[in-house]
């Protein structure tokens, strides 16, 4: 037995004892205040101890590895994933393959799989939208769900009262989202960081509460049922056919989103956002209008949320304010940060993982939320930059005045 090993064991033991002590009242004692009985579940303490003993060892090992990697990273710059992304010979055929996969997907898997993939893709859209606000312009928005709600109710109500169809409302929803984005964004742009965060959170809640209370307008908590799915040339499709159709719609929307955001980041406006994030003062000294640039980001982000909302309403066929709580905003933010702020690929992965994970954790039953929480923490501790850290694509100037962007 050499020293380090002993040392490790000692540390693990301490951890084990600490956690046994820490979890004692909650894990071991269970009081039934009605029958006034206590049962002592000493087994749990044992499990905790053993668990803590080994996990703490793993934990320390992982931390050490992380530090090593960080130093390594600083040397060679990019991570493997990012490297792969740079390699055209790999990425182009892969893209094609994936497009094919996306197309055949609903025919390979059951309707349920298609259905949850739709919700996942809706969140991808939301994630990408919020990414404009948080990732590119660096504004922390905790009320994003408000615009999502605007879109959803836009479709539900316009359809209910005026019988407008999905395709008509989709742009309308986006537009309304943008309008609200400007309305809510304008007064609070002076605020920085967490102040902005809490105010946007407030706006999110306000919208929800209004929807809850204003029955005449929104039918209150009873919600709106039987929202139709999009029609395909008035054909009478079966439920599964409609689902598949909706799936293709959302896939196209996601592709569209990615395309637009790509174009934006490489544009004059995208550059302004990055600059604003880097240094506001210098940015203004370069003649960039701070308020206008921020508002643009807000409005654009909200637009995607609005369209996402329309699709969401069409998918669930029933909406009520309960679907638009602050937790939704939080989850969307999680997808952005966990995926890798500013990185499109990252955000997409983040959204898919965080939304699909709970679905597939169903088998864990009651343990799924606790697992979800743990996953979030671990992800951040061991990959604080997100799954795929953003490497900004910089404009590479070629002498010979060729103006094409590539990395």
């Amino acid at each position, binding site marked *: 037995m050499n020293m380090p090993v002993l040392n490790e064991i000692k540390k693990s033991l301490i951890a084990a004892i600490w956690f046994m002590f820490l979890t004692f009242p909650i894990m071991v004692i269970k009081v039934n205040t009605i029958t006034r009985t206590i049962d002592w579940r000493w087994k749990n303490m044992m499990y905790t101890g053993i668990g803590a003993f080994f996990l703490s060892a793993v934990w320390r090992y992982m931390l050490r590895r992380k530090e090593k990697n960080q130093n390594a990273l600083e040397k060679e710059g990019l991570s493997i994933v990012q490297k792969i992304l740079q390699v055209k010979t790999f990425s182009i055929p892969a893209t094609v393959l994936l497009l094919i996969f996306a197309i055949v997907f609903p025919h390979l898997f059951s309707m349920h799989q298609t259905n949850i993939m739709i919700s996942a893709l809706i969140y991808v859209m939301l994630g990408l939208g919020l990414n404009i606000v948080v990732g590119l312009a660096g504004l922390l928005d905790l009320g994003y769900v408000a615009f999502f709600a605007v879109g959803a109710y836009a479709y539900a109500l316009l359809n209910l009262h005026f019988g407008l169809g999905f395709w008509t409302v989709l742009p309308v929803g986006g537009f309304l989202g943008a309008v609200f984005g400007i309305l809510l964004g304008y007064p609070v742009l002076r605020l920085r960081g967490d102040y902005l965060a809490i105010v946007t959170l407030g706006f999110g809640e306000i919208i929800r509460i209004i929807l809850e209370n204003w029955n005449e307008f929104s039918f209150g908590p009873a919600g709106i049922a039987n929202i139709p799915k999009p029609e395909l040339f008035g054909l009478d499709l079966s439920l599964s056919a409609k689902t598949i159709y909706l799936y293709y719609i959302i896939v196209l929307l996601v592709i569209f989103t990615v395309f637009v955001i790509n174009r934006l980041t*490489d544009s*004059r406006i*995208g*550059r302004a956002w990055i600059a604003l994030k*880097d*240094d506001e003062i*210098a940015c203004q000294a370069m*003649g960039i209008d701070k308020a206008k640039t921020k508002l643009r980001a807000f409005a654009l982000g909200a637009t995607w949320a609005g369209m996402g909302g329309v699709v969401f309403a069409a998918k669930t066929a029933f909406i009520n304010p309960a679907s638009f709580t602050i937790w939704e905003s939080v989850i969307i933010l999680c997808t952005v940060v966990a995926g890798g702020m500013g990185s499109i690929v990252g955000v997409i992965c983040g959204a898919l993982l965080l939304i699909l994970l709970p679905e597939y954790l169903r088998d864990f039953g009651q343990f799924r939320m606790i697992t979800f929480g743990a996953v979030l923490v671990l992800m951040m501790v061991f990959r604080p930059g997100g799954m795929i850290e953003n490497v900004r694509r*910089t404009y590479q100037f070629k002498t010979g*005045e060729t103006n094409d962007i590539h990395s």
Partner: protein
Amino acid sequence: MTSILDVKNLTLDFGGLRAIDHLNLTVNKGEIAALIGPNGAGKTSFFNCITGIYKPTAGEIFLTCRNGEKERINGLKPNLVTRKGMARTFQNIRLFSSMTVLENVMIGCHSITHAGILGAVFKDAATRKEEKYIVDKSYSILKTLELERFVNELAVNLPYGAQRLLEIARAMATDPQLLLLDEPAAGMNPTETRRLDDMILKIRDEKGIAILLIEHDMKLVMRISETIHVVDYGKKIGEGTPEEIRNHPVVIKAYLGEDIHA
């Protein structure tokens, strides 16, 4: 000779303390002027005041805009001041750290271009033309300042002297009438400083941009500037050609001392 910047009785208070005290200053077209004075004399505050970062307590600021007529610019937002034709650099370098040298200059072009969201998304002919224009313009500016060899480097990885030049390049990209340089030579070695005053002269001569600079390096000031304004405790205590300033009793007493003859 027509003036481009007229500042009349500019006054700035921070709470009780008066940073600038009824300061009058004029910069003529195509002139290189210097603003000197001991540390804390209020030079940078003066820049912040006329560029709209601080609101002056009293006084008037007039700028001759591109269209040739005078405009009162106090109380204007910094970005508008820049659009009117007055650009600046910062004493504590404020480059966009996550961007390349070229991109930093491209940001400078923001105020003279117009592509909007739709343009960005559809990349129509006009937008593409504009993008090309931005790139070419930025590159040529880098050439003027002999920075082209860094074109694709990240701005933060540049040597200190080069970063100062890049700030100037970035400011030039906004097509200014008047360029405010805040201690451009700070932290440069003598050879770099030499190159710097060539640059400044070149900018003035080729682009006809008037320049007002804050500088502690007296050699540089004396070499290139036509008018020198001396401030102390926010007050103007002297003005004139390098010669006059050299022999200006008050100035010598207040500030220069003997080191000028060194």
